């Protein structure tokens, strides 16, 4: 199972990447929207985990890109700081499958990720 992990916070990305790898997933990490876009042109991951705030290309734009431009039904899990209600709503409207607010447990992410993959 391949996971695309998009987060500009290198530390958190590294931590989550490690946890997901330990959970048995192949993880591709991208630190900004551009990289994500480039990657998605040639690859189709099984699930996308993305932060909302990213340089060049936000998480919301990423959902839009995946759902509308690429017409992919790949599950998308969005990570964001708590209290950003507008972003959450727009993320769900555009087709995000799951939302996790910071701070969160990496194990919780793993569980949600499994659930999304199971659903799909």
């Amino acid at each position, binding site marked *: 199972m391949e996971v695309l992990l998009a987060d500009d*916070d290198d530390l958190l990305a590294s931590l989550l990447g490690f946890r997901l790898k330990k959970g048995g997933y192949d993880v591709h990490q991208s630190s900004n929207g551009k990289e994500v876009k480039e990657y998605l042109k040639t690859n189709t991951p099984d699930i996308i985990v993305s932060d909302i705030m990213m340089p060049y290309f936000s998480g919301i734009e990423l959902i839009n890109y995946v759902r509308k431009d690429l017409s992919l039904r790949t599950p998308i899990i969005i990570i964001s700081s708590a209290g950003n209600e507008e972003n959450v709503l727009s993320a769900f409207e555009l087709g995000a499958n799951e939302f996790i607010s910071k701070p*969160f447990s*990496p194990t919780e992410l793993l569980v949600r990720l499994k659930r999304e993959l199971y659903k799909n």
Partner: protein
Amino acid sequence: MISSPKIPTDLLWGLSTFFVVLAMLYLISVFYFRNKITKESKKIREKKKELSPIISEFLFYDEHGDKIEKINYIGLKIEVRELIKNPFDRKVLTEILMDLRKDVSGHTRTELFNIYQDLGLHEDAFKKLKSWRWQIISKGIFELTQMHVEEAYKPITGFINDKRGTVRKQAEIAIVTLKNEGISFFMDHTKYRISEWQQLKLLDVVRNKDDYIPPPFRLWLTSKNNYVVLFALRLIKHFNQNDANASLITLVNHKSNPIKREAIHCIKEFYVSDALSMLKQVFWKNNTDIKMHILDTIAEIGGEDEIPFLESIQEGTDTFMVKNKAVRAINTIQPEAILPTKDIEEYEIRTVAKTSDTVKPTEDSERIEEKNEDVDSNTLQKELVADTHYSNYRDSNLAEEKNKLSSLSNKNLIPVSRAKSLENDDALENEKDLTQEEIAFLPIVIDSNEDEIEATNQDRKTPINQLSGNFEEVIPEREIIPFNDNFLPLVVDGIDINPLNIKVVYEEVSFEKITKIPPLKDLEVYFELVLPSIKSSKETIENSQLLDFSGLKPIEPKQGNKNENKVNSDESNEFLEWPFNFENQLGDLEEIQIEIEEALDISRDNQILKPNFHSNEIMETLALLENIEELGDAREIPLLKAMLDTETSSIVLERIGFLLEHFNTQEQGFSIESIQEKEYSVFEELIDKGDLDSKIFLLNEIAELGDSKELQLLQTLVLDENKEIKKKAKKVLQLLKNRLKLEAENEDNLITSNKPVSIEELIKKDNPDFFKLNFEPITEGYDSNPVNKDPKHSSTLFDHLCNMSTKLYNRKND
């Protein structure tokens, strides 16, 4: 003639040069510092990238993981131990942990805190507390708070009344965060003002604590610090501690308005009706704001008794807001006690009511509306100019009244016929959309003609109590099952029943007899794992050999034991002499032996040994063994082993076992001494650099994988200061020794695996190849023979015999 002033060009040049140089210096310094900062941040970024996988590895380390993971973990721990010697690396590690703390929660966060302390990074923060610069201290406190270093609680309490506001506030939050009792300490000791923002932050900290039991905050209502009282009142309200009513009532009289206000809020929140008289008493002394709060509270908790007081306020006060509040309070207590009177035009209402079916929207009504608006605005303007607070209220009131009027003009003045037709049109349109099912919930309305309406109007004139009513009988669709109360006990009031006289009917419970016995193969069989017990010297003391004195009380148990020993030593001095010298040499064994003794203790307080007389043959063998012990060394092991196979007496076997153990250990001791200089344990360096976890882990590994090279290391660790390591090392040493011993025995068994067969027996078997000696007898030791491992070895007669016999056996088996 006017001449131009002489300009000192030299000075100008000089000044220009100076400023240019200054500008250059400024630019260079800016460039230099910018570069330095960029370089440092880049370096930090790179270091973070390098260290973050290590942190991830630590955070998600699974104790039950595979060996590779454990080895990786140990390796990384050692690596980190090296890294943290460098202050820069320590700083970066702290930053990483602090950053991650913000993003993660749950177990991962707890692990982060553990790592922070395990790596000793909190010591840096403690150092910061000793700085004289407030920002450094503040940073230190913040770091310790964020990483939940409970040890820091005490040092931080020293800053609770610091003159520097930032440090003090940071310390306040730290104290409340680090320990549950921190809030009590803070409120007891703080002398300074607690700002509103700080109170909110502290409340937030307290609110988010897990398993937090708040102290009774009423205890701080008597504080000399008004800010503490105020904060206590807020906490009381937050935690619903309604056990301080008397204090709350008293605080209504406080000089400080915020405290007064907060006390009134609490009174309202907890419905302290006893406070009503006090509230009424202090009402007139207070400012408008407090008056408003008091009225609000009276409205909430008061009853009809308060209405005269409220009416007096309504009449006696000039303040518009207070007046309004009083009216509102009256209406809250007694709904619609005061009806709207302001600007109510009776004529208009009557007109609407009576002529609603005849009046058309005329110009008059429009004019009336405009007039009303003018009147309203003029009168309101006049009344409310004085009160600046009223502006918003006025606007909304105006808008409301305007809406009322417009609704009157637009709605009520529409001719009925037109309105009816409009309604019908709408209804028709709606009907088209609605199905029968959708309007099923509506009541059935029967269409009536005008006559009926008139009749109804006549009915309206009759008083309500004279109206005839039609009652509808409601029949349940299903038959109601009658409630059976037979099972309930019969309770008779006033009659004393003796419980002993009550008849008790016992229900007979019979077991079903199992007529069929299930077939044997279907029966479940539980297997018990029986492990052979390790023989110890004490096990030979069987219970049957002991006299039971459990019924007797020993007068001097200690003395008795001594005597017992004396008796034994007198009887068989030869075999009861214990080689304590050896045990003293290896202190660890002594303790282990004591442990075994304790484990096998057969309550010797009550039992003493029976006299045990042996035959001459056994006595001779024991004497021989005694001599061997006195004069022999590891070279006697083969002989002892041979004796072990032939002897049957338990006492002799025990003695042989002991001697074997003694010589084996001696032999290992020799080998250690010989190896010490040559061999080097791979674990030594790892243990040396590792932390407690690593050491324990490595010791386990030694027990499993180690060999004689590790004995020296273990013996050093037995003397370690750390109790856990010491204990573990002892266990591992014992395990390793046992394992090595077993290995050595296995090697021996390879040689002498079969039972000893005498030469006569071999000859009897008529083996033709027996006497064909196609090998050269080697006088030097056999490799696998532990005796020959000793470089100081020189063969004895026993050895030669043993070697010879071994080789013959091998030959025979080949």
